[in-house]
Protein backbone atom coordinates (compact mmCIF):
# COMPACT_ATOMS: atom_id res chain seq x y z
CA UNK A 1 0.00 0.00 0.00
CA UNK A 2 1.50 3.26 -1.13
CA UNK A 3 0.77 6.93 -0.83
CA UNK A 4 0.52 9.20 -3.85
CA UNK A 5 4.00 10.51 -2.97
CA UNK A 6 5.41 6.96 -2.70
CA UNK A 7 4.03 6.14 -6.16
CA UNK A 8 5.48 9.19 -7.89
CA UNK A 9 8.80 8.73 -6.10
CA UNK A 10 9.05 5.03 -7.05
CA UNK A 11 8.33 5.70 -10.71
CA UNK A 12 11.12 8.29 -10.95
CA UNK A 13 14.01 6.56 -9.22
CA UNK A 14 16.89 6.13 -11.65
CA UNK A 15 19.33 4.90 -9.00
CA UNK A 16 17.87 3.91 -5.62
CA UNK A 17 18.83 5.53 -2.32
CA UNK A 18 21.71 3.83 -0.50
CA UNK A 19 24.33 5.66 1.56
CA UNK A 20 24.00 8.13 -1.25
CA UNK A 21 20.71 9.87 -2.00
CA UNK A 22 18.55 8.49 -4.82
CA UNK A 23 19.03 9.84 -8.31
CA UNK A 24 15.53 11.02 -9.13
CA UNK A 25 14.40 11.80 -12.69
CA UNK A 26 12.82 15.19 -13.29
CA UNK A 27 10.07 15.44 -15.92
CA UNK A 28 9.74 19.22 -16.09
CA UNK A 29 12.22 21.94 -15.12
CA UNK A 30 10.88 25.48 -15.04
CA UNK A 31 13.41 28.28 -14.85
CA UNK A 32 13.33 32.06 -14.37
CA UNK A 33 15.74 34.97 -14.35
CA UNK A 34 16.66 35.21 -10.65
CA UNK A 35 17.95 31.75 -9.70
CA UNK A 36 19.58 30.70 -12.98
CA UNK A 37 22.41 33.06 -14.05
CA UNK A 38 24.94 31.43 -11.72
CA UNK A 39 23.74 27.96 -12.78
CA UNK A 40 24.29 28.72 -16.46
CA UNK A 41 27.68 30.23 -15.60
CA UNK A 42 28.55 26.92 -13.89
CA UNK A 43 27.45 24.97 -16.98
CA UNK A 44 29.68 27.10 -19.19
CA UNK A 45 32.61 26.60 -16.86
CA UNK A 46 32.12 22.83 -17.03
CA UNK A 47 31.48 22.85 -20.77
CA UNK A 48 28.11 21.15 -20.26
CA UNK A 49 24.90 21.52 -22.25
CA UNK A 50 21.26 21.30 -21.14
CA UNK A 51 20.41 17.59 -21.25
CA UNK A 52 16.72 17.95 -22.15
CA UNK A 53 15.77 21.24 -23.78
CA UNK A 54 12.36 19.62 -24.44
CA UNK A 55 11.75 19.34 -20.69
CA UNK A 56 13.07 22.77 -19.71
CA UNK A 57 10.96 25.92 -20.00
CA UNK A 58 11.87 29.49 -19.11
CA UNK A 59 9.95 32.63 -18.33
CA UNK A 60 10.52 36.02 -16.71
CA UNK A 61 8.56 36.96 -13.63
CA UNK A 62 10.40 38.05 -10.46
CA UNK A 63 12.41 41.09 -11.45
CA UNK A 64 10.32 42.45 -14.33
CA UNK A 65 8.15 45.58 -14.22
CA UNK A 66 4.37 45.21 -14.15
CA UNK A 67 3.76 48.81 -15.22
CA UNK A 68 4.49 47.90 -18.83
CA UNK A 69 5.91 45.00 -20.83
CA UNK A 70 9.01 46.93 -21.72
CA UNK A 71 12.37 47.11 -19.95
CA UNK A 72 13.04 50.59 -21.37
CA UNK A 73 14.14 52.86 -18.55
CA UNK A 74 13.88 49.99 -16.05
CA UNK A 75 16.29 49.20 -13.20
CA UNK A 76 19.62 48.45 -14.87
CA UNK A 77 20.53 45.42 -12.76
CA UNK A 78 17.12 43.85 -13.19
CA UNK A 79 17.21 44.49 -16.93
CA UNK A 80 20.63 42.87 -17.13
CA UNK A 81 19.36 39.83 -15.25
CA UNK A 82 16.41 39.48 -17.61
CA UNK A 83 18.70 39.87 -20.64
CA UNK A 84 21.09 37.28 -19.17
CA UNK A 85 18.26 34.76 -19.06
CA UNK A 86 17.37 35.52 -22.68
CA UNK A 87 20.95 35.09 -23.89
CA UNK A 88 21.42 31.89 -21.85
CA UNK A 89 18.20 30.43 -23.29
CA UNK A 90 19.38 31.28 -26.82
CA UNK A 91 22.81 29.79 -26.21
CA UNK A 92 21.55 26.59 -24.58
CA UNK A 93 18.45 26.13 -26.75
CA UNK A 94 15.89 26.47 -23.96
CA UNK A 95 12.42 27.73 -24.96
CA UNK A 96 11.70 31.09 -23.34
CA UNK A 97 8.37 32.85 -22.83
CA UNK A 98 9.65 36.40 -22.61
CA UNK A 99 7.91 39.74 -22.25
CA UNK A 100 6.83 39.59 -25.90
CA UNK A 101 5.22 36.19 -25.46
CA UNK A 102 1.50 35.66 -24.85
CA UNK A 103 2.56 32.72 -22.66
CA UNK A 104 4.65 34.78 -20.22
CA UNK A 105 3.69 34.89 -16.58
CA UNK A 106 4.62 33.78 -13.09
CA UNK A 107 6.33 30.44 -13.51
CA UNK A 108 3.82 28.66 -11.24
CA UNK A 109 0.88 30.11 -13.11
CA UNK A 110 2.03 29.30 -16.64
CA UNK A 111 3.20 25.70 -15.95
CA UNK A 112 -0.37 24.53 -15.32
CA UNK A 113 -1.80 26.82 -18.03
CA UNK A 114 0.45 25.29 -20.66
CA UNK A 115 -0.41 21.76 -19.57
CA UNK A 116 3.19 21.11 -18.49
CA UNK A 117 2.02 20.34 -14.98
CA UNK A 118 0.49 16.86 -15.14
CA UNK A 119 -0.45 14.24 -12.55
CA UNK A 120 2.32 11.83 -11.63
CA UNK A 121 5.12 14.03 -12.96
CA UNK A 122 8.14 15.33 -11.11
CA UNK A 123 8.63 19.07 -11.54
CA UNK A 124 11.23 21.40 -10.05
CA UNK A 125 12.10 25.09 -10.24
CA UNK A 126 14.52 27.38 -8.45
CA UNK A 127 11.70 28.86 -6.42
CA UNK A 128 10.22 27.59 -3.18
CA UNK A 129 6.62 28.06 -4.38
CA UNK A 130 7.09 25.27 -6.91
CA UNK A 131 4.99 23.31 -4.42
CA UNK A 132 2.03 24.95 -6.24
CA UNK A 133 2.11 22.30 -8.98
CA UNK A 134 1.38 19.58 -6.42
CA UNK A 135 -2.28 20.54 -6.82
CA UNK A 136 -2.27 18.28 -9.90
CA UNK A 137 -0.83 15.28 -8.08
CA UNK A 138 2.64 16.11 -9.40
CA UNK A 139 5.66 15.92 -7.10
CA UNK A 140 6.91 19.48 -7.28
CA UNK A 141 9.30 21.41 -5.10
CA UNK A 142 11.71 24.30 -5.00
CA UNK A 143 15.45 23.85 -5.45
CA UNK A 144 18.52 26.05 -5.04
CA UNK A 145 20.73 27.31 -7.84
CA UNK A 146 23.28 24.45 -7.46
CA UNK A 147 20.39 22.05 -7.99
CA UNK A 148 19.15 24.08 -10.96
CA UNK A 149 22.56 23.52 -12.53
CA UNK A 150 22.35 19.82 -11.62
CA UNK A 151 18.96 19.40 -13.31
CA UNK A 152 19.97 21.43 -16.37
CA UNK A 153 23.01 19.18 -16.82
CA UNK A 154 21.56 15.79 -15.88
CA UNK A 155 17.72 16.08 -15.79
CA UNK A 156 18.10 14.45 -12.37
CA UNK A 157 18.26 15.45 -8.75
CA UNK A 158 20.05 13.84 -5.81
CA UNK A 159 17.29 13.39 -3.33
CA UNK A 160 16.42 11.60 -0.11
CA UNK A 161 12.84 10.57 0.34
CA UNK A 162 10.68 12.72 2.61
CA UNK A 163 8.05 11.50 5.03
CA UNK A 164 4.30 11.49 4.32
CA UNK A 165 2.03 13.98 6.14
CA UNK A 166 -1.73 13.71 5.55
CA UNK A 167 -3.78 16.88 5.98
CA UNK A 168 -7.52 16.25 5.88
CA UNK A 169 -10.03 19.04 5.57
CA UNK A 170 -13.33 17.33 6.36
CA UNK A 171 -16.77 18.80 5.77
CA UNK A 172 -17.36 21.95 3.75
CA UNK A 173 -16.40 25.60 3.88
CA UNK A 174 -18.75 28.35 5.01
CA UNK A 175 -19.46 31.22 2.59
CA UNK A 176 -16.64 33.78 2.55
CA UNK A 177 -14.03 31.16 3.54
CA UNK A 178 -11.58 30.12 0.82
CA UNK A 179 -8.53 27.98 0.11
CA UNK A 180 -6.25 30.76 1.38
CA UNK A 181 -7.99 30.61 4.75
CA UNK A 182 -7.60 26.81 4.84
CA UNK A 183 -3.85 26.89 4.33
CA UNK A 184 -3.32 29.83 6.73
CA UNK A 185 -5.33 27.93 9.36
CA UNK A 186 -3.14 24.86 8.87
CA UNK A 187 0.12 26.81 9.19
CA UNK A 188 -1.19 28.66 12.26
CA UNK A 189 -1.83 25.24 13.80
CA UNK A 190 1.42 23.42 12.97
CA UNK A 191 3.87 26.36 12.69
CA UNK A 192 6.23 27.31 9.88
CA UNK A 193 8.46 24.32 10.64
CA UNK A 194 5.61 21.85 11.22
CA UNK A 195 6.03 20.11 7.88
CA UNK A 196 9.84 20.09 7.72
CA UNK A 197 11.11 16.81 6.25
CA UNK A 198 7.63 15.92 4.99
CA UNK A 199 5.48 16.10 1.89
CA UNK A 200 1.88 17.14 2.58
CA UNK A 201 -1.00 15.34 0.98
CA UNK A 202 -4.16 17.43 1.20
CA UNK A 203 -7.38 15.43 1.23
CA UNK A 204 -10.90 15.38 2.59
CA UNK A 205 -14.21 16.52 1.17
CA UNK A 206 -13.42 20.24 1.45
CA UNK A 207 -10.32 19.78 -0.75
CA UNK A 208 -12.19 17.58 -3.23
CA UNK A 209 -14.77 20.37 -3.64
CA UNK A 210 -12.14 22.96 -4.62
CA UNK A 211 -11.39 23.98 -8.21
CA UNK A 212 -7.82 23.76 -9.51
CA UNK A 213 -7.02 27.42 -8.80
CA UNK A 214 -7.97 26.95 -5.16
CA UNK A 215 -6.03 23.68 -4.86
CA UNK A 216 -2.99 25.52 -6.22
CA UNK A 217 -3.39 28.19 -3.52
CA UNK A 218 -3.23 25.51 -0.83
CA UNK A 219 -0.27 23.61 -2.31
CA UNK A 220 1.55 26.88 -3.02
CA UNK A 221 1.87 27.63 0.69
CA UNK A 222 2.98 24.11 1.70
CA UNK A 223 6.49 25.52 1.94
CA UNK A 224 5.28 28.11 4.48
CA UNK A 225 4.42 25.14 6.67
CA UNK A 226 7.93 23.77 6.15
CA UNK A 227 7.00 21.04 3.63
CA UNK A 228 8.92 21.27 0.37
CA UNK A 229 5.97 19.78 -1.52
CA UNK A 230 2.22 19.48 -1.14
CA UNK A 231 -0.01 17.15 -3.12
CA UNK A 232 -3.66 16.76 -4.00
CA UNK A 233 -4.70 13.45 -5.55
CA UNK A 234 -5.82 13.95 -9.15
CA UNK A 235 -9.52 13.53 -9.93
CA UNK A 236 -12.02 14.60 -12.61
CA UNK A 237 -11.52 18.27 -11.66
CA UNK A 238 -7.79 17.83 -12.41
CA UNK A 239 -8.35 15.94 -15.66
CA UNK A 240 -10.83 18.52 -16.95
CA UNK A 241 -8.35 21.30 -16.28
CA UNK A 242 -5.47 19.58 -18.07
CA UNK A 243 -7.46 18.32 -21.08
CA UNK A 244 -6.81 20.20 -24.31
CA UNK A 245 -3.93 22.33 -23.03
CA UNK A 246 -0.92 22.87 -25.28
CA UNK A 247 1.38 20.24 -23.76
CA UNK A 248 -1.36 17.87 -22.53
CA UNK A 249 -1.44 14.42 -24.11
CA UNK A 250 -3.87 14.11 -27.03
CA UNK A 251 -5.88 11.29 -28.60
CA UNK A 252 -4.75 7.78 -27.65
CA UNK A 253 -1.97 9.23 -25.50
CA UNK A 254 -4.63 11.05 -23.45
CA UNK A 255 -6.54 7.82 -22.80
CA UNK A 256 -3.33 6.10 -21.73
CA UNK A 257 -2.36 8.98 -19.47
CA UNK A 258 -5.81 9.06 -17.90
CA UNK A 259 -5.66 5.35 -17.08
CA UNK A 260 -2.25 5.91 -15.47
CA UNK A 261 -3.34 9.01 -13.55
CA UNK A 262 -6.38 7.26 -12.08
CA UNK A 263 -4.05 4.81 -10.31
CA UNK A 264 -2.14 7.60 -8.55
CA UNK A 265 -4.30 8.34 -5.47
CA UNK A 266 -2.98 6.94 -2.17
CA UNK A 267 -4.08 3.36 -1.52
CA UNK A 268 -6.57 2.74 1.29
CA UNK A 269 -4.56 2.07 4.43
CA UNK A 270 -1.32 3.56 3.06
CA UNK A 271 1.03 4.70 5.82
CA UNK A 272 1.38 8.36 6.74
CA UNK A 273 4.04 9.37 9.25
CA UNK A 274 1.87 12.23 10.46
CA UNK A 275 -1.77 13.17 10.01
CA UNK A 276 -4.02 16.03 11.01
CA UNK A 277 -7.72 16.60 10.47
CA UNK A 278 -9.27 20.02 10.32
CA UNK A 279 -13.02 20.58 10.36
CA UNK A 280 -13.61 22.85 7.37
CA UNK A 281 -16.88 24.11 8.80
CA UNK A 282 -15.01 25.51 11.81
CA UNK A 283 -12.82 27.75 9.65
CA UNK A 284 -13.22 31.51 9.41
CA UNK A 285 -11.53 33.95 7.03
CA UNK A 286 -7.92 34.16 8.25
CA UNK A 287 -5.42 37.00 8.42
CA UNK A 288 -1.83 37.20 9.62
CA UNK A 289 -0.78 39.69 12.28
CA UNK A 290 2.94 38.91 12.58
CA UNK A 291 6.04 38.33 10.51
CA UNK A 292 5.70 34.72 9.46
CA UNK A 293 2.72 32.96 7.89
CA UNK A 294 2.16 30.89 11.03
CA UNK A 295 1.22 34.05 12.90
CA UNK A 296 -2.34 33.94 11.60
CA UNK A 297 -5.71 34.29 13.34
CA UNK A 298 -9.37 34.33 12.36
CA UNK A 299 -10.30 37.75 11.00
CA UNK A 300 -12.62 38.40 13.94
CA UNK A 301 -10.07 37.37 16.58
CA UNK A 302 -7.69 39.61 18.52
CA UNK A 303 -3.91 39.77 18.34
CA UNK A 304 -2.61 37.16 20.80
CA UNK A 305 -0.24 37.98 23.65
CA UNK A 306 3.38 37.34 22.65
CA UNK A 307 4.81 34.04 23.91
CA UNK A 308 8.41 34.39 22.66
CA UNK A 309 10.93 37.19 22.06
CA UNK A 310 10.26 36.59 18.37
CA UNK A 311 6.55 37.36 18.91
CA UNK A 312 7.47 40.56 20.74
CA UNK A 313 9.69 41.65 17.84
CA UNK A 314 6.95 40.74 15.35
CA UNK A 315 4.34 42.90 17.05
CA UNK A 316 6.80 45.76 17.37
CA UNK A 317 7.60 45.56 13.66
CA UNK A 318 3.90 45.36 12.78
CA UNK A 319 3.02 48.20 15.22
CA UNK A 320 0.27 46.05 16.73
CA UNK A 321 -0.72 45.57 20.36
CA UNK A 322 -1.70 42.30 22.04
CA UNK A 323 -5.47 42.10 22.40
CA UNK A 324 -6.05 44.51 19.54
CA UNK A 325 -8.75 43.66 16.98
CA UNK A 326 -7.53 43.58 13.40
CA UNK A 327 -10.97 44.36 11.97
CA UNK A 328 -10.96 48.12 11.47
CA UNK A 329 -7.16 48.39 11.50
CA UNK A 330 -6.26 51.06 8.93
CA UNK A 331 -4.35 49.98 5.83
CA UNK A 332 -2.51 51.78 3.03
CA UNK A 333 -2.02 49.21 0.27
CA UNK A 334 -3.92 46.23 -1.12
CA UNK A 335 -2.16 43.76 -3.39
CA UNK A 336 -4.08 41.13 -5.32
CA UNK A 337 -1.86 38.79 -7.28
CA UNK A 338 1.15 36.42 -6.95
CA UNK A 339 1.57 32.68 -7.53
CA UNK A 340 -0.67 32.17 -4.50
CA UNK A 341 -3.71 34.19 -5.57
CA UNK A 342 -3.11 35.68 -9.02
CA UNK A 343 -5.33 33.35 -11.05
CA UNK A 344 -8.63 34.00 -12.79
CA UNK A 345 -10.87 32.72 -9.99
CA UNK A 346 -8.97 34.90 -7.49
CA UNK A 347 -9.59 37.97 -9.65
CA UNK A 348 -13.24 36.99 -10.06
CA UNK A 349 -13.60 36.73 -6.27
CA UNK A 350 -12.12 40.19 -5.76
CA UNK A 351 -14.14 41.69 -8.62
CA UNK A 352 -17.38 40.30 -7.22
CA UNK A 353 -16.94 42.54 -4.17
CA UNK A 354 -15.56 45.54 -6.02
CA UNK A 355 -18.21 45.69 -8.75
CA UNK A 356 -20.04 49.00 -8.37
CA UNK A 357 -17.95 49.97 -5.35
CA UNK A 358 -14.88 52.17 -4.85
CA UNK A 359 -11.47 51.56 -3.35
CA UNK A 360 -11.16 53.74 -0.26
CA UNK A 361 -9.17 56.88 -1.18
CA UNK A 362 -6.54 56.18 1.49
CA UNK A 363 -5.68 52.87 -0.21
CA UNK A 364 -3.47 52.14 -3.21
CA UNK A 365 -4.73 48.92 -4.74
CA UNK A 366 -2.76 46.88 -7.25
CA UNK A 367 -4.33 44.02 -9.16
CA UNK A 368 -1.64 42.01 -10.91
CA UNK A 369 -2.70 39.02 -13.04
CA UNK A 370 -0.48 35.99 -12.57
CA UNK A 371 0.07 35.57 -16.30
CA UNK A 372 -0.59 37.18 -19.62
CA UNK A 373 -3.24 34.53 -20.20
CA UNK A 374 -4.99 35.32 -16.91
CA UNK A 375 -4.92 38.98 -17.98
CA UNK A 376 -6.43 38.20 -21.38
CA UNK A 377 -9.20 36.04 -19.89
CA UNK A 378 -9.94 38.57 -17.15
CA UNK A 379 -10.23 41.36 -19.71
CA UNK A 380 -12.47 39.20 -21.90
CA UNK A 381 -14.99 39.10 -19.07
CA UNK A 382 -14.57 42.75 -18.15
CA UNK A 383 -12.81 42.28 -14.78
CA UNK A 384 -10.22 44.89 -15.69
CA UNK A 385 -12.99 47.49 -16.01
CA UNK A 386 -14.41 46.52 -12.61
CA UNK A 387 -11.01 47.08 -11.00
CA UNK A 388 -10.23 50.29 -12.86
CA UNK A 389 -13.67 51.78 -12.23
CA UNK A 390 -13.22 51.00 -8.54
CA UNK A 391 -9.95 52.93 -8.59
CA UNK A 392 -7.48 50.03 -8.56
CA UNK A 393 -4.42 49.74 -10.83
CA UNK A 394 -4.66 46.96 -13.43
CA UNK A 395 -1.14 45.76 -14.20
CA UNK A 396 0.86 43.46 -16.43
CA UNK A 397 1.71 39.91 -15.32
CA UNK A 398 4.55 39.31 -12.85
CA UNK A 399 5.50 38.68 -9.22
CA UNK A 400 5.13 42.38 -8.41
CA UNK A 401 4.58 43.32 -4.76
CA UNK A 402 4.99 39.79 -3.47
CA UNK A 403 8.76 40.14 -3.57
CA UNK A 404 9.60 43.83 -3.97
CA UNK A 405 12.57 43.44 -6.30
CA UNK A 406 10.86 44.79 -9.38
CA UNK A 407 9.80 48.35 -8.68
CA UNK A 408 6.50 47.39 -7.02
CA UNK A 409 6.76 47.68 -3.26
CA UNK A 410 5.01 48.82 -0.12
CA UNK A 411 6.55 51.97 1.43
CA UNK A 412 8.23 51.70 4.82
CA UNK A 413 5.78 51.97 7.68
CA UNK A 414 2.78 51.28 5.44
CA UNK A 415 0.44 48.39 6.06
CA UNK A 416 -0.75 46.19 3.22
CA UNK A 417 -3.36 43.52 2.94
CA UNK A 418 -1.77 41.13 0.49
CA UNK A 419 -2.93 37.93 -1.18
CA UNK A 420 0.69 36.79 -1.49
CA UNK A 421 2.42 34.13 0.59
CA UNK A 422 4.96 35.78 2.89
CA UNK A 423 4.69 38.42 5.58
CA UNK A 424 8.37 38.31 6.55
CA UNK A 425 9.95 41.57 7.67
CA UNK A 426 10.77 43.61 4.58
CA UNK A 427 9.27 41.09 2.18
CA UNK A 428 7.09 43.69 0.42
CA UNK A 429 9.68 46.43 0.87
CA UNK A 430 11.97 47.60 3.66
CA UNK A 431 9.84 48.43 6.69
CA UNK A 432 6.61 47.29 4.99
CA UNK A 433 3.97 45.64 7.17
CA UNK A 434 2.14 42.79 5.49
CA UNK A 435 -1.16 41.21 6.46
CA UNK A 436 -1.73 38.06 4.42
CA UNK A 437 -5.32 37.25 3.51
CA UNK A 438 -7.60 35.93 0.78
CA UNK A 439 -8.61 37.93 -2.31
CA UNK A 440 -12.09 38.33 -0.77
CA UNK A 441 -10.70 39.81 2.45
CA UNK A 442 -8.25 41.96 0.47
CA UNK A 443 -11.05 43.37 -1.71
CA UNK A 444 -13.29 44.04 1.29
CA UNK A 445 -10.41 45.81 3.05
CA UNK A 446 -9.66 47.92 -0.03
CA UNK A 447 -13.25 49.18 -0.04
CA UNK A 448 -13.26 49.99 3.67
CA UNK A 449 -9.71 51.37 3.94
CA UNK A 450 -9.13 49.09 6.88
CA UNK A 451 -9.11 45.36 7.55
CA UNK A 452 -12.68 44.28 6.76
CA UNK A 453 -14.75 41.12 6.72
CA UNK A 454 -15.80 40.12 3.18
CA UNK A 455 -18.93 38.45 4.55
CA UNK A 456 -20.49 41.86 5.21
CA UNK A 457 -20.77 42.33 1.43
CA UNK A 458 -22.23 38.95 0.52
Amino acid at each position, binding site marked *: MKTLYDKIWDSHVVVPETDAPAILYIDIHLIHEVTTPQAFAGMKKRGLGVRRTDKTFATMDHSIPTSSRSLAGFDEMAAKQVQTLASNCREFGVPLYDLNSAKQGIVHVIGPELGLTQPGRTLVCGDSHTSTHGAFGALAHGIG*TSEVEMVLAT*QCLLQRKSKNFLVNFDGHLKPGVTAKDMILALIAKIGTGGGTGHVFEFGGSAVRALDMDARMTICNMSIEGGARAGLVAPDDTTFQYVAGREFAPKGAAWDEALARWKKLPSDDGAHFDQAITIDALSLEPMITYGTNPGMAIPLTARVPAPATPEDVQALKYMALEPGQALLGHPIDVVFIGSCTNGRLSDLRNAARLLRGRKVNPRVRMLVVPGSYDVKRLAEAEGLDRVFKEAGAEWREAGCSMCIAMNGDSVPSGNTSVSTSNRN*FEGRQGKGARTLLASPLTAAASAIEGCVADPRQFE
Partner: protein
Amino acid sequence: MKVASRIVVVPQENIDTDQIIPARFLKITDKAGIGQHLFEDRPEFQVKKGSAILVAGDNFGCGSSREHAVWALKDFGFQAVISTSFADIFRQNSLKNALLPVVVDSVTHALLKQDLLVTIDLASQKLSIENGPTVSFPIDSFSKTCILEGIDEIGYILKHDSAISSFEQKRN
Protein backbone atom coordinates in the same frame (compact mmCIF):
# COMPACT_ATOMS: atom_id res chain seq x y z
CA MET B 1 37.04 20.07 7.54
CA LYS B 2 37.57 21.62 10.95
CA VAL B 3 36.26 25.01 12.01
CA ALA B 4 37.36 26.67 15.23
CA SER B 5 35.97 30.09 15.95
CA ARG B 6 34.36 32.37 18.46
CA ILE B 7 30.63 32.20 17.81
CA VAL B 8 28.11 34.89 16.85
CA VAL B 9 24.72 34.20 18.39
CA VAL B 10 21.42 35.44 16.95
CA PRO B 11 18.93 33.91 19.38
CA GLN B 12 15.86 34.41 17.20
CA GLU B 13 13.84 31.49 15.81
CA ASN B 14 12.48 31.15 12.26
CA ILE B 15 15.04 33.45 10.65
CA ASP B 16 13.91 33.36 7.03
CA THR B 17 16.02 33.84 3.94
CA ASP B 18 14.50 37.30 3.35
CA GLN B 19 16.21 38.37 6.61
CA ILE B 20 19.50 36.73 5.59
CA ILE B 21 19.50 38.46 2.21
CA PRO B 22 16.63 40.79 1.20
CA ALA B 23 15.13 40.23 -2.27
CA ARG B 24 16.37 43.53 -3.66
CA PHE B 25 19.89 42.05 -3.64
CA LEU B 26 18.87 39.10 -5.79
CA LYS B 27 19.20 41.03 -9.04
CA ILE B 28 22.83 40.00 -9.42
CA THR B 29 24.02 37.60 -12.12
CA ASP B 30 27.09 36.40 -10.18
CA LYS B 31 27.97 35.83 -6.51
CA ALA B 32 30.64 38.45 -6.01
CA GLY B 33 30.43 40.59 -2.91
CA ILE B 34 26.98 39.39 -1.87
CA GLY B 35 28.20 39.03 1.72
CA GLN B 36 28.17 42.79 2.18
CA HIS B 37 24.36 42.67 2.25
CA LEU B 38 24.09 39.84 4.79
CA PHE B 39 21.38 40.71 7.37
CA GLU B 40 21.38 44.22 5.92
CA ASP B 41 17.89 45.05 7.21
CA ARG B 42 18.52 43.45 10.62
CA PRO B 43 21.30 45.54 12.16
CA GLU B 44 19.98 44.61 15.62
CA PHE B 45 21.32 41.08 15.03
CA GLN B 46 24.79 42.68 15.38
CA VAL B 47 26.46 40.16 13.12
CA LYS B 48 30.02 41.42 12.68
CA LYS B 49 32.83 40.02 10.59
CA GLY B 50 35.52 37.84 12.10
CA SER B 51 33.60 34.76 13.16
CA ALA B 52 33.22 31.57 11.14
CA ILE B 53 30.34 30.10 13.17
CA LEU B 54 26.83 31.52 13.41
CA VAL B 55 24.42 30.25 16.04
CA ALA B 56 20.72 30.86 15.40
CA GLY B 57 17.33 29.75 16.70
CA ASP B 58 15.13 26.95 15.47
CA ASN B 59 14.03 26.54 11.81
CA PHE B 60 16.85 28.66 10.42
CA GLY B 61 16.65 29.48 6.71
CA CYS B 62 12.92 29.02 6.24
CA GLY B 63 11.16 30.66 3.32
CA SER B 64 12.56 31.20 -0.12
CA SER B 65 14.84 28.75 -1.94
CA ARG B 66 17.38 31.50 -2.75
CA GLU B 67 20.86 30.01 -2.58
CA HIS B 68 21.96 33.64 -2.31
CA ALA B 69 21.34 33.28 1.44
CA VAL B 70 24.05 30.63 1.66
CA TRP B 71 26.38 32.53 -0.67
CA ALA B 72 25.97 35.64 1.51
CA LEU B 73 26.80 33.74 4.71
CA LYS B 74 29.83 32.12 3.05
CA ASP B 75 31.04 35.33 1.45
CA PHE B 76 30.74 37.08 4.81
CA GLY B 77 33.05 34.45 6.32
CA PHE B 78 30.80 31.83 7.91
CA GLN B 79 31.69 28.18 7.45
CA ALA B 80 29.07 26.69 9.75
CA VAL B 81 25.66 27.52 11.20
CA ILE B 82 24.42 25.88 14.40
CA SER B 83 20.71 25.58 15.16
CA THR B 84 18.19 23.15 16.60
CA SER B 85 16.77 22.69 13.08
CA PHE B 86 17.07 23.97 9.53
CA ALA B 87 14.53 24.43 6.76
CA ASP B 88 14.86 21.69 4.13
CA ILE B 89 15.87 23.75 1.09
CA PHE B 90 18.31 25.88 3.07
CA ARG B 91 19.99 22.74 4.45
CA GLN B 92 20.41 21.33 0.94
CA ASN B 93 21.79 24.61 -0.36
CA SER B 94 24.23 24.81 2.58
CA LEU B 95 25.64 21.35 2.05
CA LYS B 96 26.19 22.08 -1.62
CA ASN B 97 28.33 25.06 -0.66
CA ALA B 98 30.20 23.45 2.26
CA LEU B 99 28.46 25.70 4.76
CA LEU B 100 27.94 23.16 7.55
CA PRO B 101 24.38 23.06 8.94
CA VAL B 102 25.04 21.71 12.42
CA VAL B 103 21.99 20.52 14.37
CA VAL B 104 22.24 20.32 18.16
CA ASP B 105 19.63 19.61 20.83
CA SER B 106 18.09 22.47 22.78
CA VAL B 107 20.17 21.75 25.89
CA THR B 108 23.43 22.11 23.96
CA HIS B 109 22.01 25.08 22.07
CA ALA B 110 21.36 26.87 25.37
CA LEU B 111 25.06 26.55 26.25
CA LEU B 112 26.15 28.44 23.15
CA LYS B 113 26.72 31.92 24.52
CA GLN B 114 28.04 34.85 22.54
CA ASP B 115 31.81 34.78 21.82
CA LEU B 116 32.46 31.30 23.20
CA LEU B 117 35.08 29.34 21.29
CA VAL B 118 33.52 26.43 19.44
CA THR B 119 35.27 23.76 17.38
CA ILE B 120 33.41 21.77 14.74
CA ASP B 121 35.07 18.72 13.23
CA LEU B 122 33.19 17.31 10.26
CA ALA B 123 35.17 14.07 9.99
CA SER B 124 34.35 12.96 13.55
CA GLN B 125 31.02 14.87 13.59
CA LYS B 126 31.96 16.43 16.93
CA LEU B 127 31.26 19.88 18.26
CA SER B 128 33.27 21.12 21.27
CA ILE B 129 32.33 24.09 23.37
CA GLU B 130 34.99 26.03 25.28
CA ASN B 131 34.84 25.00 28.97
CA GLY B 132 31.89 22.82 28.04
CA PRO B 133 30.91 19.51 26.61
CA THR B 134 31.77 17.88 23.31
CA VAL B 135 28.72 16.59 21.48
CA SER B 136 28.08 14.63 18.29
CA PHE B 137 26.01 16.07 15.49
CA PRO B 138 24.26 14.34 12.59
CA ILE B 139 25.04 15.08 8.98
CA ASP B 140 24.06 13.44 5.71
CA SER B 141 26.74 10.82 5.06
CA PHE B 142 26.87 11.45 1.32
CA SER B 143 27.19 15.22 1.75
CA LYS B 144 29.91 14.67 4.35
CA THR B 145 31.93 12.55 1.93
CA CYS B 146 31.40 15.07 -0.87
CA ILE B 147 32.66 17.94 1.31
CA LEU B 148 35.59 16.04 2.82
CA GLU B 149 36.73 14.51 -0.46
CA GLY B 150 35.78 17.35 -2.74
CA ILE B 151 33.39 15.18 -4.74
CA ASP B 152 31.39 17.10 -7.28
CA GLU B 153 27.73 16.04 -7.15
CA ILE B 154 27.06 16.79 -10.81
CA GLY B 155 30.08 14.70 -11.76
CA TYR B 156 28.71 11.94 -9.52
CA ILE B 157 25.35 11.93 -11.34
CA LEU B 158 27.05 12.06 -14.75
CA LYS B 159 28.82 8.81 -13.88
CA HIS B 160 25.33 7.25 -13.96
CA ASP B 161 24.67 8.62 -17.42
CA SER B 162 23.88 5.21 -18.91
CA ALA B 163 21.33 4.54 -16.16
CA ILE B 164 19.70 7.90 -16.92
CA SER B 165 19.63 7.15 -20.64
CA SER B 166 18.07 3.71 -20.17
CA PHE B 167 15.50 5.24 -17.76
CA GLU B 168 14.61 7.76 -20.47
CA GLN B 169 14.33 5.06 -23.13
CA LYS B 170 12.16 2.87 -20.94
CA ARG B 171 9.73 5.73 -20.36
CA ASN B 172 9.40 6.69 -24.01
